[in-house]
């Protein structure tokens, strides 16, 4: 069983624990099984228990921890709030987990240049809270934004409903400070303005799922709050009508800020819980938002209204005020919580397809559900073709869980078949590594492996992610991890000079 800390009582494990306690303080290191068990899961259906958990407070400490872990040959991985949905922040092969919750300071707000410099443990929504008084917000808004951290968002290149017009995390990050896994070296990539003037390393590290480096500081763009916002709820009798509407909106070149679909089955579960105002007898609703200059918003909303009605929307309602708008979004963003009330296991899938293939794909998902004996709900980012089929299962019933995994793989396979991809915003992580060959060849894997090894040559950082087992690295570690006797000590690496952080 991965994650069972068989080596807890060895001398070297105790030595590493003590060294970490000395570096960080006793309260910042967890090593007892009852503590570690809290870190063996995330928002996904996967598990993996770390052997140790440490809470660094500074970049220098992160660097020192990396060196210590290397000395004891202990794999490491970073973790934010643990809300990820693909197992990216799980210790698949045990090891030392760095949790960034203490590095949660906003270091700089530069409104003139519309930038903020933040530590990785800052919660996504807290950036917006810190800047909204000045008329700004941080645009990427994953449903988990009340708890997920910017560090995790960067690792997974998180999306959200409003990324349709505004882009995902990578479009909003201009610079990073990183700690490299090989020797704890601290490096900076990108700049406040953002143009790389060389290779776009920032673009590579964002979305690398914590497999290339540990991110210790992030420069993000702040977006000006739009002058006008209109939120529309379009109510349809059938899922088909709603998805034809989305395809038509896209084809006509209208880019709403958000275009979310909830099918009838899902919205009834949500409405029971949140009372957001979704009509209980509808087949599907679209939650649409347009934003920007007042004159543009008015004409876009009118065009969308017309398209919805042309596709047999029985009602198109415009939120009258912020209160109604917030309530509609509360319904959307708490949908997974609402589903949690009726099933012990929720498997939120994440596939992506060309928008024009939406109607046929939703029909195929229903067929797959029937085939595997599930009622599959859909609440998702329809505007960018990012599907989130939801399979509810009984957590205690392994047979059901295995069936859910098979249904998921079938859906993802279909996404690829129609020209789509494996994941739109959750990441590959542990969940989908075995599906990667649907898209990539052995030559592709060899190449990705070379890029991986350029930064993480010993696979000491977050092993067992992204690459299918056997094509990446870290498989040998997928057994209970035994803490090694420390290697003979070379001269202790000096702490990085302050100048590195001060640039």
């Amino acid at each position, binding site marked *: 069983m991965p994650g069972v800390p068989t080596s807890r009582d060895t001398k070297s494990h105790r030595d590493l624990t003590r060294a970490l306690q000395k570096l960080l303080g006793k309260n910042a290191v967890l090593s007892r099984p009852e503590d570690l068990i809290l870190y063996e899961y995330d928002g996904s259906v996967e598990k993996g228990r770390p052997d140790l958990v440490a809470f660094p407070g500074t970049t220098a400490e992160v660097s020192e921890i990396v060196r210590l872990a290397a000395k004891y040959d202990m794999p490491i991985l970073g973790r934010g709030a643990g809300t990820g949905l693909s197992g990216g922040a799980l210790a698949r092969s045990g090891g030392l987990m760095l949790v960034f919750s203490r590095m949660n300071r906003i270091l700089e707000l*530069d409104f*003139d240049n519309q930038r903020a410099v933040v530590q990785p443990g800052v919660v996504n929504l807290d950036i917006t809270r810190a800047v909204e008084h000045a008329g700004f917000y941080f645009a990427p808004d994953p449903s988990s934004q009340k708890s997920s951290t910017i560090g995790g968002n960067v690792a997974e*290149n998180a*999306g959200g409903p409003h990324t349709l017009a505004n882009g995902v995390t*990578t479009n909003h990050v201009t610079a990073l400070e990183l700690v490299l896994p090989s020797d704890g*070296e*601290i490096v*900076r990539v990108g*700049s*406040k*303005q*953002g*143009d*790389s*003037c*060389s*290779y*776009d*390393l920032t*673009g*590579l590290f964002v979305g*690398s799922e914590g497999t290339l480096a540990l991110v210790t500081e992030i420069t993000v763009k702040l977006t000006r709050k*739009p002058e006008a916002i209109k939120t529309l709820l379009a109510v349809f009798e059938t899922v088909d009508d709603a998805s034809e509407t989305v395809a038509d909106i*896209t*084809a006509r*070149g209208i880019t709403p800020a958000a275009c979310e679909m909830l099918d009838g089955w899902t919205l009834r579960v949500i409405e029971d819980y949140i009372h957001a105002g979704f009509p209980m007898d509808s087949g599907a609703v679209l939650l649409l938002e347009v934003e920007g*200059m*007042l*004159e*543009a918003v008015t*004409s876009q909303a009118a065009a969308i209204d017309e398209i919805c009605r042309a596709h047999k929307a029985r009602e198109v309602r415009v939120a009258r005020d912020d209160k109604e708008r917030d309530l509609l979004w509360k319904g959307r963003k708490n949908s997974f919580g609402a589903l949690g009330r009726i099933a012990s296991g929720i498997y939120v899938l994440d596939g*992506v*397809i*060309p*928008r*024009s*293939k939406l109607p046929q794909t939703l029909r195929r998902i229903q067929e797959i559900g029937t085939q595997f004996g599930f009622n599959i709900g859909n609440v998702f*980012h329809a505007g*960018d*073709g990012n599907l989130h089929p939801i399979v509810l299962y009984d957590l205690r019933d392994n047979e059901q869980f295995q069936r859910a995994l098979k249904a998921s793989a079938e859906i993802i396979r279909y996404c690829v078949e129609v*020209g789509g*991809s*494996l*994941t*739109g*915003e959750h990441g*590959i992580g542990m969940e989908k590594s075995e599906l*990667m060959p649907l898209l990539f*060849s052995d*030559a*592709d894997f060899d*190449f*990705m492996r*070379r*890029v*991986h090894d*350029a930064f993480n040559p010993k696979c000491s950082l977050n092993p067992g992610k992204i690459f299918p087992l056997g094509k990446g690295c870290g498989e040998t570690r997928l057994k209970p991890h035994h803490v090694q006797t420390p290697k003979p000590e070379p001269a202790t690496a000096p702490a990085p*000079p302050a*100048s590195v952080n001060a*640039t």
Partner: protein
Amino acid sequence: MSAVTDSAVARLESVLGANAIFVAKAANRELYALDGVSPTAFAKPASTEQAAEIVRFAAKENLSVIPIGARTKLFCAPTPARYDVALDLTALDDVAHYDPADLTVSVGAGMPLAKLNTMLREQNQFVPLLVPYYTQSTIGGTIAAGLDSPLRNAYGTPRDFLLGAEFIDGNGAQIKTGGRVVKNVTGYDLHKLLIGSCGTLAAITRLNFRTFPLPATTQGFLAAFPDYKSALSARQKVIHSPLVPLTLDVLNAQAARLFDGHTNGTAPIPEIDSNHWYLFTEFSGNEDLLARYKRELAEIADQSQAGDMHILEDSTALAAMAARLRESIAHFREHFAAPVIVKLALPPAQHTQAATVLQSIADAAKLPIAVIARASGPILIATSLQSEHSASGEATDSPISSLFAREILTLARSFGGRAQLISAPPHIKPAYRTIFRESLASERTLARRIKSAFDPNNLFPTLDAPAAQPTPPKSETSQSPSPSSEAAAQTDLPPSPPTPLPSKQS
């Protein structure tokens, strides 16, 4: 080092078969010359497979390769230390996929950019890449060169709309990255590394883009300001207003001469006054929006002491002005003697201080200097090194010109920015490139690691100056930068002269 021998030619020709074109030691090799260096041979594969075959062959024979499109922006690439084979990819110009209803397109790297946009225009769509040498450029060369498009103010840069790519790595393997859907986090974003890689990493064979609806009716606004402070202050006010124009640039008089001789519909635009700075912006929308843009832009300009203001409503005239702005780099290269063009990447609020310094550099060195300060950050600087030696008419790498480069570097660093050499006369280009790459600090070490992952045989050119010594990883990042030593060792430049600039704290 090896060159293309006769037997190698024969072997490669037998590998390629009849469809590909392979020419060695012929006169027209010079078409592919880069900074005066011609390849021994050029190869024009008819398919991606053939292109990969050529790269594999080159790897086996230890030949250096430069991937090439329409040859319009070779000046962006580093001067090659070796140059055996020019890999002409212009025959890879197919449309693999275009789904107008999905707003995505996938094309071969050799597809001419203008041809692509003509095809997209039929569906009222386009790829918002208005780059210099637009009418000749291939899409592959455009991405590899990574030059700026004025439209980035509204649409971002290629990193925001390039969805995926296929390329040939330095082993000759055909690699795929990303996809053709608008939202995708499957695997590493390797395609982002190709942007601005100038042929140093891989031979790009296919590119997938998000397309955009063509803007509605577009109009423009040109205003003259008494100095850069007022022009930039007006620009900052627009940035922080609800207005979202398509382009938003401040130009000094030298740069604004781009528009010389132009007419605003029937009325000619008054002559550019050499003491003025100009704000040029384009915006689009319905009638209400256009009216609001014109009203509010005029108000903002007025608050910032603007003199002459011109509303540009004639679409033909405006399109012609936009084309001149798009071609600014080409214009400077053609109209300046011994042109040096530099991009300075600084956050926009720092542009006023940067302009102060640029002005003093230009005055001190008596260099004519053209400046385009783009709202999203980059400042394009063009100068002519010839005027300092106007008597002889010869451009030289005088102390003043290297001082110019050093001071631009100091300027970039003092605000935590970056400097990049876009174009320079061949004889000073390596030295200038080395100087500007100092602004990248520790990233150069990481860039080398990327380079070895993409191109383990060092078949493609390197971004760093030729013969760069592999530096121990520690030295660049963990010590305070010692800029001059490395550069001086590689380029015989005199050590960095003391800078006359006021020191700035970022």
